[in-house]
């Protein structure tokens, strides 16, 4: 939950801020998700990389570049939550990836933000889909048993999609841990062993905090976890940093709610395919939920009652929901379609937009930077050709921190290269 002050300062000196123009997006149907509300024909004023004003009758300073939205919808930039974007390049090639790196010594402490590559080829692809931020969540390395004895996948990071050097918004945005059947598979074979392990690791971290002096002098019993991991668990125990818990069936969700209440943890549920069956309990516990609304199959025995209305039912009960894309960063752009599917199955439209903008910003602790169109926030903005949740709509303008992005990518370059044919010149010469 620490803002990266260093990065922000560096950004002021060398980063995109130096090139930020004053821009007014006019004649926009603004979905602000903020206290400003919505406007049928409004203006968003952008200055020094931030939103300077939102309204129907804003005065536009001389020299401002105008983007006439022509009545089209403007939303905050979208957030891909629970993604490997920026950390992984090619899922099938381990050497191209940095999103899975927990070791026996660095599990809770594994910090994916240090593996983020702002120059990832996947980032422009996601940006063309209107995504301007991502909550990058690490996964445990290896498959099946090769995941070994590790419980925590590590620290999630929030990044912006400017592609610039200072693109880390927030480190330690949440600590990711899976309590599902996947974890049971490599940690003893039972959901019970995983839950006990979680509680034991947290107990150990509490003991470490109470006996730090003895530990440093080498006179305390040894701990199973490394010092770095024990340190990383302190903000979790203090309820300052969210614990992002992969959990799926009703019984496990209830146990996690009980654990969180007892230890006063700040929990975010991830998956929660059966959450709709106890939506009231999740709402009463005040727990937000990350979910992929497409999951409606009994893929595992822990989600036999998965259904398409999960998002709608949870939201109606008062749960803050965040709609995710698939984890693999290639599909970050899918986040808006997923919100659309949730709307198709009962989620109110604006709640669908909030689930991919303001809600993730709030629960992952970067609401002061992004997620709404409100003065003072970074100018992450998208002008859409139509309804942002529709496949047939595309972004017309994308701004990240006040900088308009060129809507190009390596994929676009390939498309253009092969859109024409010339029998006298191999395509390799066209670039």
């Amino acid at each position, binding site marked *: 939950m620490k803002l990266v002050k260093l990065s922000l300062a560096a950004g002021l000196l060398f980063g995109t801020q130096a090139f930020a123009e004053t821009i007014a997006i006019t004649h926009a149907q603004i979905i602000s998700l903020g206290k400003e509300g919505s406007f049928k024909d409004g203006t968003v004023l952008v200055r020094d990389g931030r939103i300077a004003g939102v309204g129907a009758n804003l005065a536009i300073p001389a020299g401002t570049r105008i983007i006439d939205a022509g009545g089209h919808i403007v939303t905050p930039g979208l957030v891909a939550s629970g993604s490997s974007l920026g950390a992984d390049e090619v899922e099938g090639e381990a050497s191209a990836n940095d999103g899975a790196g927990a070791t026996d010594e660095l599990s809770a402490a594994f910090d994916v933000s240090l593996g983020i590559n702002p120059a990832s080829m996947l980032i422009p692809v996601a940006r063309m889909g209107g995504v301007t931020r991502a909550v990058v969540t690490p996964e445990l390395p290896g498959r099946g048993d090769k995941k070994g004895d590790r419980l925590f996948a590590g620290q999630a990071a929030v990044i912006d999609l400017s592609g610039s050097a200072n693109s880390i918004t927030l480190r330690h945005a949440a600590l990711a841990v899976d309590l599902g059947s996947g974890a049971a598979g490599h940690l003893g074979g039972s959901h019970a062993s995983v839950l006990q392990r979680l509680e034991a690791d947290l107990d150990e971290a509490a003991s470490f905090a109470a006996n730090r002096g003895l530990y440093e002098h080498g006179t305390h019993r040894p701990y199973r976890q490394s010092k770095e991991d024990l340190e990383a668990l302190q903000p979790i125990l203090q309820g300052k940093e969210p614990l992002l818990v992969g959990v799926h069936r009703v019984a496990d969700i209830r146990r996690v709610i009980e654990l969180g209440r007892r230890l006063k943890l700040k929990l975010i549920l991830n998956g929660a395919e059966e959450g709709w*069956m106890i939506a009231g309990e999740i709402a009463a516990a005040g727990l937000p939920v990350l979910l992929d609304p497409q999951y409606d199959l009994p893929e595992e*025995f822990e*989600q036999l009652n998965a*259904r398409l209305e999960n998002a709608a039912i949870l939201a109606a009960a008062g749960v803050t929901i965040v709609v995710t894309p698939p984890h693999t960063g290639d599909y970050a752009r899918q986040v808006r379609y997923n919100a659309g599917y949730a709307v198709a199955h009962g989620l109110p439209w604006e709640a669908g937009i909030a689930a991919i903008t303001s809600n993730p910003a709030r629960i992952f602790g970067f609401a002061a930077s992004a997620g709404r169109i409100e003065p003072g926030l970074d100018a992450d903005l998208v002008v859409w050709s139509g309804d942002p949740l529709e496949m047939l709509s595309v972004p017309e303008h994308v701004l990240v921190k006040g900088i308009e992005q060129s809507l190009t990518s390596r994929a676009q370059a390939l498309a253009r290269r*092969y859109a024409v044919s010339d029998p006298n010149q191999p395509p390799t010469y066209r670039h």
Partner: protein
Amino acid sequence: MKKTLAAVPLLAALAVLSACATMSVTSPATQAASSPKESPAFPGLDPSTDSDPFPSTYRALPSNGFALVGATILTGTGSRIENGTVIVENGKITAVGAGLALPAGVQPIDARGKFVTPGIIDAHSHLGVYATPQVWANSDGNEATDPNTAQVWAEHSVWPQDPGFVRALEGGITTLEILPGSANLFGGRSVALKNLPGRTVQDMKFPGAPYGMKMACGENPKRVYGGKGRSPSTRMGNVYGYRKAWIEAQDYRRRWDEYHKKLADFKAGKGDKAPDAPKRDLQLDTLMGVLDGSILVQNHCYRADEMAQMIAISHEFGFHISMFHHGSEAYKIADILKREDICTATWGEWWGFKMESFDGIEENAALLQNGGACVVIHSDDAILTQHLPQEAAIALAAGRRLGIAIDEAEAIKWVTANPAKAIGVLDKTGTLEPGKMADLVLWSADPFSVYALAEKVYIDGGLAYDRRDPTRQPLSDFELGQAGPAHPGDRP
């Protein structure tokens, strides 16, 4: 965080070509079998007399004549009809148009403000063979024990109670091509199913559809067998494996042809001893079915250069590849695919999960369409199959962004007529034309909209699914008696 599409590309990676059926083969032996003297004494030894050992027992639901009236109709033939009517009688489409008078006894159904399309066809599905729940017991899609398993048939792995079939139906899927996985160079036979729940796979088999045969290029076979210390471990090893198998298949075909000629001569009174039949080989039967054109090659292949290799092999041995599946780089060789009359089944937005899909672009389908090649949008996934027109919409939008104008009446072919062509059933379904099977979907909205829901799904004129009528909502045995109503349309 464990549930991502990440698992799916691996499956895609494992796609395999399957061999097609020999059901349409006629040979001298079959023609002569009416004579008692010539009838086979030992059933099952001659593939030409044993072309359909697992025959379809499909039966359509009862269907009274009805008409969907007032809808926007995308016919699958390239036409869009506003305020149109589709008339169905005896399980067949009898008329499609605007302002049609209804014959006596045909019940009108108000479809104003809604859309009608042909039933959606998923030409690349592993439902039943990789059923949910995704437990070891249900993992029956890859016989990854030898790079050539042309002898296995996907239908023998299909679990008809896979809940995924019902979910696909709720998404408008009426026909599926079920393929073996892609671990092997030759994965086995694929099978076309009508997506009407049945007790047995035979109950679901699409009557009269040809078999397919799955083949696989690239990374999967070389990874699976290279990892076992066997050939193939490289792409050149893959190509050797294909050619070796086709040589054997051609030789097998030659031996059967010679046998059938000698048998015909014997029946005509030449010689006094009937010829000995070659020893039957199930693997070679399937490959022979490809060579005689009765089995359609369904070839998992991502890279353009590898597709060109496969085409060269097809020329060398004289067979035709019906469709490349996944085809992430097909846009690079649209002209070749057009010339060869090979369809490409691809996604709207899946890409980049491995090196051979790294050049996958959303514009793939539009570039192929623009180049005159046959485009199919497929799923390879139990979730995606529920949203196939929307996946097509992603590809459509990308094409328009590039400046390629394709209208929706054309794009609907990507999930209807074109997959029907590629799996060999276009003469029976895939378009809304008189005489075709009445496989159709009534959509709540434009099917290319993210909000569109299939309200009614008809298969051979029978109402297989109705979002508003619980008595028309199938539930697999596996899901029966579970705690929650895991169904669209239900509210707790």
